[in-house]
């Protein structure tokens, strides 16, 4: 027999564990959930971090990006001479549209120059398929993998681009990934859409020839010396590039792809900080309850052991082993599940972010940390109970325990009004206020966890609703490569299917108030706009103020400016005037943090005619195909974004991920609820078995006796639900704070469906557990209860 290998005490331990397997498993599952959450989020965070850093390092991701109008190649040396700059490269960056057979509107394309031969030092490409440019080849391009995959493009396929007013065919030489486009977001877009946004790299000589940029560049990318001050470098770069139409250099931190990736990592980090501690705290509490009760039941055995001469240490060790075994099982399950979940998450991220590789890295120290936390939490949770057991003197331990002393509490007046069984429930609940309270909070954590996870869906829906049905009501937006006189609006309005056409203007500028400044675009909007509107703080549509500037709430917060304050606006385009504008409105918006001005006022201030950067249109769907087909042949169009397709692409990705996350969060919440309720039920049953059996003997029916035990659990669960709702809302609120960035904010909106689902899941788990406990009441041994004394 295997058992003979163990010492007698260990044999007892194994048998006890086997007897209490369900309760032990329930606790182990909670430990497992905490470990799994930690390993998944921490592992993913490190995987993303490691992968990103290695990718940036190997492919020379730039530290600073500086777009400008046009500068001669000789200006690069002047940039390189700036202290703190290690190397700089000039390149050509343009936009065009692609006529893809798969989609009805033109796809948007960013074109970057790439050296004809060799590779740049900055922002090198990773070739996934095909080859590099052939020397002297014409009309060859490298294309981003995401776009190629979305359209099933292969090397040697041809694509047609409308580039600088001319349609041209290009052959795909290779398919590439770039550290600049890990998160591939079209300029001005809110969500990635691989079908409609392409990045293309062309041989520098060819691109220069197409755009008459020989011997010149319109973007600088640079690496800094280690330890150089980025803000100083950026200020110097701006100074140098100012005469060349520089519109303001950006640090890596403001580069879109990097920015979004960092945001995602921050979110993972928060998840790793919030969820696992909840599970470990619940596990601590459950272990404490279970071990305390077990020790109480074993008083006489402990007395016996000590009378036989077992040392206090040996007795303590016996119970510690019990805790360790449960924790170890939980840890193992959690480590395996966490690794598995992490791998799944890596696959999900791989769809979102375009890395040459992304593995879920299993750092050993992560597993050690998870183990240390699990075991430490378990030991701290049970320390008191184990000490109590070990310290019992043999004589005391072997004497029976006196009946639990109940006293009249403050609540007694209304407890007395209840019937006997109900009175028992209430007295028992108040007799152990700490335990009842913790049980309550434990159950409520299940509800809270679900609400705080599922609220993202509600918030996102509200965000989309606000952004795309209240603010941006257009069907499509056509933007131009260069600002156009406003009569083009009439041209667009006369295109097939266009019902409403509304111009807008985007102007790069630096906004300054006091010591705060922000580089961004000021959006010019027409009076009486119906397609692109402003919302006031109560989310009511309003006109853009005729004078001054309207700031979004987040921008106002960043600048520290309020209504009536006068801000300084350095326009970075055209004649580059500096304007002093009063803040005349604060506007609510969840995506980005824009500033708005009346279009006419803006154009006047720029000392330009009536210019427009693009047109928002509302379409008659019957003619939409004709409209888009026409745009495919219209030069000067930089980008056509169709709201519905963009939203669809976003929803598809989001829904898949949300469903997976909801599934796991539901499991985690059920684990908590079942763990807490089952333990509370088991312990209550064990404490009161004799009492309940006595009642059965006195003529109480099975249901009446069940009511006493389950009534208490029911009471605690009912109290726990609203507490869970409150904690859940608080956690959701913390999420909105931690996700309050100038890229986007999520509103604190929780639907009744989320509340309903969260409460139902926990309630169902509690009821299911109650049914199991009820079946155990049915098996109470009436006869034994008369004889035994606890």
């Amino acid at each position: 027999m295997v058992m003979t290998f163990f010492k007698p005490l260990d044999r007892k331990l194994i048998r006890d564990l086997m007897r209490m397997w369900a309760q032990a498993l329930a606790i182990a599952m909670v430990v497992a959930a905490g470990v799994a959450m930690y390993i998944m989020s921490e592992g993913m965070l490190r995987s993303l971090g490691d992968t990103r850093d290695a990718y940036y390092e190997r492919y020379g991701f730039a530290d600073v990006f500086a777009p400008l109008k046009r500068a001669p190649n000789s200006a690069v040396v002047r940039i390189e001479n700036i202290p703190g700059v290690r190397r700089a490269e000039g390149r050509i960056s343009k936009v065009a549209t692609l006529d893809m057979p798969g989609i009805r509107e033109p796809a948007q394309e960013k074109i970057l120059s790439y050296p004809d031969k060799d590779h740049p030092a900055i922002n090198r490409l990773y070739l996934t398929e095909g080859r590099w440019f052939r020397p002297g080849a014409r009309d060859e391009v490298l294309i981003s993998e995401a776009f190629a995959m979305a359209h099933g493009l292969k090397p040697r396929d041809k694509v047609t681009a409308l580039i600088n007013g001319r349609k041209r065919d290009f052959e795909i030489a290779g398919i590439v990934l770039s550290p600049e486009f890990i998160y591939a977001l079209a300029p001005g877009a809110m969500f990635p859409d691989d079908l409609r946004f392409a990045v293309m790299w062309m041989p520098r000589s060819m691109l220069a020839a197409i755009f008459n940029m020989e011997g010149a560049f319109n973007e600088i990318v640079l690496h800094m010396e280690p330890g150089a001050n980025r803000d100083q470098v950026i200020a110097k770069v701006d100074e140098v590039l100012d005469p060349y139409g520089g519109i303001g250099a950006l640090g890596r931190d403001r580069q879109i792809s990097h920015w979004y990736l960092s945001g995602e990592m921050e979110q993972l980090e928060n998840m790793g900080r919030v969820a696992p501690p909840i599970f470990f705290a619940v596990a601590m509490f459950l272990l404490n309850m279970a071990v305390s009760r077990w020790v109480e039941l074993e008083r006489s055995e402990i007395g016996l052991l000590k009378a036989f001469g077992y040392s206090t240490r040996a007795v303590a060790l016996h119970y510690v082993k019990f805790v360790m075994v449960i924790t170890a099982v939980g840890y193992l399950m959690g480590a395996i599940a966490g690794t598995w979940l992490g791998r799944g998450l890596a696959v999900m991220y791989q769809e979102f972010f375009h890395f040459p590789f992304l593995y879920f890295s299993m750092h050993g120290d992560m597993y050690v940390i998870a183990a240390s936390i699990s075991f430490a939490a378990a030991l701290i949770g049970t320390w008191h109970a184990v000490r109590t057991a070990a310290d019992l003197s043999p004589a005391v331990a072997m004497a029976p325990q006196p009946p639990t002393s109940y006293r009249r509490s403050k609540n007694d007046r209304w407890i007395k009004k209840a019937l006997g069984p109900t009175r028992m429930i209430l007295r028992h609940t108040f007799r152990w206020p700490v335990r009842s309270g913790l049980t309550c909070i434990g159950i409520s954590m299940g509800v809270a966890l679900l609400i705080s996870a599922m609220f993202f869906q509600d918030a996102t829906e509200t965000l989309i609703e606000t952004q795309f049905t209240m603010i941006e009501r257009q069907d499509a937006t056509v933007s131009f490569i260069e600002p156009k006189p406003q009569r083009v609006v009439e041209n667009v309005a006369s295109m097939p299917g266009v019902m409403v056409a509304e111009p807008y203007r985007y102007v790069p500028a630096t906004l300054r108030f006091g010591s705060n400044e922000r580089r961004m675009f000021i959006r010019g909007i027409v009076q009486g706009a119906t397609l692109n509107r402003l919302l006031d703080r109560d989310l009511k549509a309003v006109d853009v103020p005729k004078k001054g500037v309207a700031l979004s709430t987040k921008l106002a917060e960043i600048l520290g400016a309020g209504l009536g304050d006068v801000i300084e606006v350095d326009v970075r385009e055209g004649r580059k005037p500096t304007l002093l504008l009063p803040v005349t409105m604060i506007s609510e918006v969840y995506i980005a943090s824009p500033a708005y001005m009346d279009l006419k006022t803006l154009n006047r201030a720029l000392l330009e005619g009536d210019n427009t950067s693009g047109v928002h249109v509302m379409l008659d769907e019957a003619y939409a195909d004709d409209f888009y087909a026409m745009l495919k042949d219209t030069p000067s169009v930089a980008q056509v974004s169709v709201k519905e397709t963009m939203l669809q692409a976003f929803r598809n990705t989001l829904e898949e991920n949300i469903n997976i996350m909801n599934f796991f969060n539901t499991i985690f919440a059920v684990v908590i609820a079942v763990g807490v309720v089952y333990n509370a039920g088991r312990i209550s049953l064990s404490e009161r078995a004799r009492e309940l059996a006595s009642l059965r003997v006195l003529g109480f029916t099975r249901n009446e006796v069940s009511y006493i035990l389950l009534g208490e659990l029911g009471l605690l669960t009912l109290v726990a639900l609203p507490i869970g709702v409150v904690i859940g809302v608080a956690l959701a609120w913390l999420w909105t704070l931690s996700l309050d960035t100038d890229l986007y904010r999520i509103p604190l909106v929780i639907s009744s469906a989320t509340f309903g689902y969260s409460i139902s899941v926990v309630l169902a788990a509690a009821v299911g557990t109650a049914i199991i406990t009820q079946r155990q009441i049915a098996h109470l041994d009436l006869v034994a209860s008369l004889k035994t004394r606890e």
Partner: protein
Amino acid sequence: MNKTSPERAISTIPTLEARGVSKVYQTGALEVTALGGVDLSLFEGELVVFLGPSGSGKSTLLNILGGLDRPSAGAVYFRGDELTQFDDHALTLYRRDHVGFVFQFYNLVASLTARENVDLVTEIAINPMSSDDALGVVGLSHRMDHFPAELSGGEQQRVAIARAIAKQPDILMCDEPTGALDIKTGITVLQAIEQTNRELGTTTAIITHNATVANMADRVILLADGHIIEVIENSSRKRPEELSW
């Protein structure tokens, strides 16, 4: 059937009858016969003491008569109804409506006061006396609002008796009611039982291994090895306070 004392009349109508009742426990491969074919009747209003050493089967018999356990063979009749044919629910109702139990270890509900422990029963009984009256019978009117932890062992047992008699049961079953008590306390508990039997005419069965207690009975039934070996009819009952051990 002898009349035990001139002022008290024992009915000839049996409240409970056992016919060929046996109980065999199967523990692994081992068969243990706890009761081996017992016949007996308990008559209305009489006080019977079951006397015997541990393992004689007296508790098993009481459990079967009280509807807590089922015999392996034989039949038990309560006022002509065959208990052994009752399902679980009917047995529960039998206990609820007709039987009062007193246990060796009191089995009070720790979270309820003395009065509330009695209320437990009066709330579900058909024709109960008031809890105050029941506690008055056992002499605990002044301790009614105390919790079990605040009562002595004898007091706890008297609360248990009050709880048992409050429903005005037809049968009072007491399993070693003084087993956990000292002499003096034991006597006050026996007084309470005797008084109930005398004043309410409740058929009373007491299990004990203490031969002295037998002196307060109308009949003493001696058990050994699962069989009734002798039935002694006392010509006169001693009052509990006259007992000593």
